[in-house]
């Protein structure tokens, strides 16, 4: 699971959970997988990304390079920054781990890089 995907997941499918975002990551096995850098793709995706959720997720996965608190339009020309964003969004792979609902604490497993968001009948 890439952090780009994580950015789009919520747990408000659980009965009683209001926002369920962002899900915390408890990493079990994290890998770095090289992906071709495409600055245009990054600038296209950026407006759709919840930046603070990405920043938090990257930290939880041990992303040492770190991300700034905000990314303004004037920074979109900064290739070094875009490369760091690219690395966080696309190259960090959570292979095994858990996603945790911030309101209920309910854990969703990530196995073989795939999050399982299915609920039990009593949770819906």
């Amino acid at each position, binding site marked *: 699971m890439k952090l780009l995907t994580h950015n789009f997941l919520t747990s408000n499918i659980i009965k009683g959970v209001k926002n369920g975002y962002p899900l915390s990551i408890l990493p079990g096995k994290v890998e770095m997988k090289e*992906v071709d850098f495409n600055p245009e793709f990054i600038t296209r995706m950026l407006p759709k990304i919840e930046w603070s959720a990405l920043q938090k997720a990257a930290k939880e996965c041990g992303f040492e390079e770190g991300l700034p608190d905000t990314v303004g339009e004037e920074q979109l020309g900064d290739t070094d920054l875009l490369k760091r964003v690219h690395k966080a969004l696309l190259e960090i792979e959570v292979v095994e781990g858990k996603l945790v609902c911030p309101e209920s604490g309910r854990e969703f497993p990530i196995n073989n890089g795939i999050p399982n968001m299915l*609920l039990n009948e009593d949770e819906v």
Partner: protein
Amino acid sequence: MSLTSLSHFPTPKISHLSTDDFKFIYEPAEDSFLLLDALEKDCVRIEKLRPCICLEVGCGSGICITFLATILKSWPSLYLCTDINHKATEIAQQTGRENGINIQPVTTDLVESLDVRLKGQVDILLFNPPYVVTPESEVGSKGIEAAWAGGERGRQVIDRFLTKVSDLLSEEGLFYMVVINENIPEEIEQMMKKEGFDMETVLTRRSGPELLSILRFHRTQA
């Protein structure tokens, strides 16, 4: 596999899948290949859209989302797919890898857990639903039956999903869905018209007793 003789895009390799896998997931068949042919037929339109986010619901083996990604190879997009069957999402990821595509699967029921953040964001939406007419009791499995069991008129899962399309699709987004005649496409067209969508039938093909169609929806232009 594809019946189109002039194929510009290679049909995704699925040689990594075994007969054993098909005990658990849907083996690509005429319906899958018809959807591939429809996407190929629409490739210019799809490329022109310059999609950012593509989503396949009920991806099964992952052959369709992989093929879409192959069409768009020079224009990177986020390829998400879901399936209620965890074996399917695992296999879809593999299918992507075997074809040099990165698919991001999520095991979930339709678009649960993704729909909030994907509101108005999906540029290409694919759905090859469980369209077979079956007793209602057969609907709701998380195993291979989920691939075909459609309940009354084969519409139980289709209708549940159709209510979500308007929220998911971006302004210029395209939604492709496989149906059979028994699903009454004309009725689906009327339902979606009320939601503000125009429908076209991209391709039709008979496969044994089934008359398959690929329907394409987009927002009615003012």
